[in-house]
């Protein structure tokens, strides 16, 4: 990790993206004091994690589903956590219910599937009703129901005004969930911007234009500095302009338009473009 400076805002889901080994998990481990940064600091509300007296009441973290003793029951695991931070024991039943684990609360964690372990990890993260939540790959091992459950949970946690940092490899999942994106590549920050802006900067945002005079329109668009690609005789793909600009231009020159359809890049496309850059050029700050 180097030169990474981030502030995660409350009330939003911040998506944390990057190739394997980019430093996502390491960043989250540093925030919670498991790893010490060689220089710099990670603070929560201005304090290092290790200085917080009852950290579970302020920061909930799911960093690794397999972080419970296999011989302990789910209920005992959560009860220990509650006692460690002076949280009422009633809260254990609440988070078990929330995570859909009530029926298996008395089973040993070692017999849990990966999906159940993820749910237990989320129950543990929520036990102190914290304002800050860190979820590292929470949907790993979950069935479609579980994936949907996580998505709704994460959205509602942010809607309650909490700060949520979520990492995932699943772009489609991130597209559904994140408001803000932080993209890491090789320990460097590649992007830190609202979701719409990251997508908007992609060169893959394009407008398809169909016109019987496509060639004429092509020349006028080039004159305005837009990038134009000819597809078929009557079809061109325009990037770097808005539908309004193209429509107005066509109107001024009396060119009939048969189609003017913007196509937004998907998160996956925008992400691939961003991280390809990071691999190709190495260090690159911002976007």
């Amino acid at each position, binding site marked *: 990790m180097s030169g990474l400076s981030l502030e995660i805002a409350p009330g939003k889901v911040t998506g944390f993206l990057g190739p394997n080994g980019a430093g996502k998990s390491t960043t989250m481990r540093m925030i919670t004091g*498991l*790893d010490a940064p060689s220089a710099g600091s990670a603070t929560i509300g201005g304090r290092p994690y*290790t200085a917080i007296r009852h*950290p579970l009441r302020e920061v909930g973290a799911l*960093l690794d589903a397999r*972080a419970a003793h296999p*011989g302990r029951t789910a209920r005992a695991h959560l009860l220990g956590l509650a006692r*460690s931070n002076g949280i009422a024991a009633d809260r254990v039943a609440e988070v078990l219910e929330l995570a859909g684990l009530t029926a298996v609360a008395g089973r040993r964690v070692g017999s849990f599937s990966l999906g159940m372990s993820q749910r237990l990890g989320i129950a543990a993260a929520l036990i102190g009703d914290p304002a800050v939540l860190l979820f590292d790959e929470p949907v790993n091992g979950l069935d479609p129901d579980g994936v949907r459950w996580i998505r709704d949970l994460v959205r509602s946690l942010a809607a309650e005004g909490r700060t949520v940092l979520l990492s995932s490899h699943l772009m489609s999942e991130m597209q559904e969930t994140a408001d803000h994106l932080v993209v890491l590549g090789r320990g460097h920050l590649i992007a830190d911007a609202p979701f719409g802006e990251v997508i908007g900067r992609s060169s893959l945002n394009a407008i398809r234009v169909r016109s019987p005079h496509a060639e004429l329109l092509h020349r006028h668009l080039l004159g305005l500095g837009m990038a134009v690609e000819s597809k078929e005789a009557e079809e061109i793909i325009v990037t770097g302009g808005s539908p309004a600009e193209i429509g107005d231009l066509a109107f001024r020159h009396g060119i009939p338009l048969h189609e003017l359809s913007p196509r937004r890049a998907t998160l996956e496309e925008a992400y691939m473009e961003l991280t390809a850059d990071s691999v190709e050029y190495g260090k690159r700050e911002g976007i």
Partner: protein
Amino acid sequence: MKGALAFEWTKLWTVRSTPWSLFAAALLTAGVAAVVGVSAQASAENGFDTARPAPHTVADALTLGQLAVVVTATLAVTGEYASGSIRTTLHSVPARGRMLIGKAAVVTGVLGAAGLCLSAIGTASAAPLMGETGSFTAADAVGSALGTAAYLAGLALLATGLGTVLRSAAGTITAMIMLLMAVPQLTQIAGIDWLETVGDFLPSAAGVVLMTQDTDPYGTGPAALVLAAWGLAALTGGYVTLRRRDA
């Protein structure tokens, strides 16, 4: 600190290894104490002077029984590393010192209490078989019970500290067996004076003094200090490791 203690207490009693290890320690102590008692009685009948207070047989019985106790303390630490639950633990109690002191205090307290019970169990097992040979006073029984408690508490500190340094059950238990059983033998058989003196300051030697209220090579006060020094050294090593190595 209250939270850290409650947390460690809950964790210690919600895994099966704790009651099973303590149960094994009780069985071993009762069994070996009985054998030692029978043997002392038989020797006495053959004219040897083997008279000793029955509570002192616990010191012999624990040469084996202490291993089950060491396992309890070791697993309380290394089980966390093996399962990955150490990360959850450090999320909950991120101050390394507080976490370690909480764990050491709970494990030491529980094993100290176990020492009282094991002393009573060993005495109850050996005394009826020894008859006159094992006659003892209330002071013998109380002194021996407190000594056993102190010895096992010392072992608990030692195993907790060492387990935090080594992070593996196999490594910690091997090191403890070396220290408690192999090294004491080696210091005795070599017949070298200074090595025997070193042997006097091993935890097991201090333990025998405490459990039998002996005055050789030193009394119970110095013995308690020797054990405490071993325990604190291991715990300090554990603290330094926790601070320096990523979890």
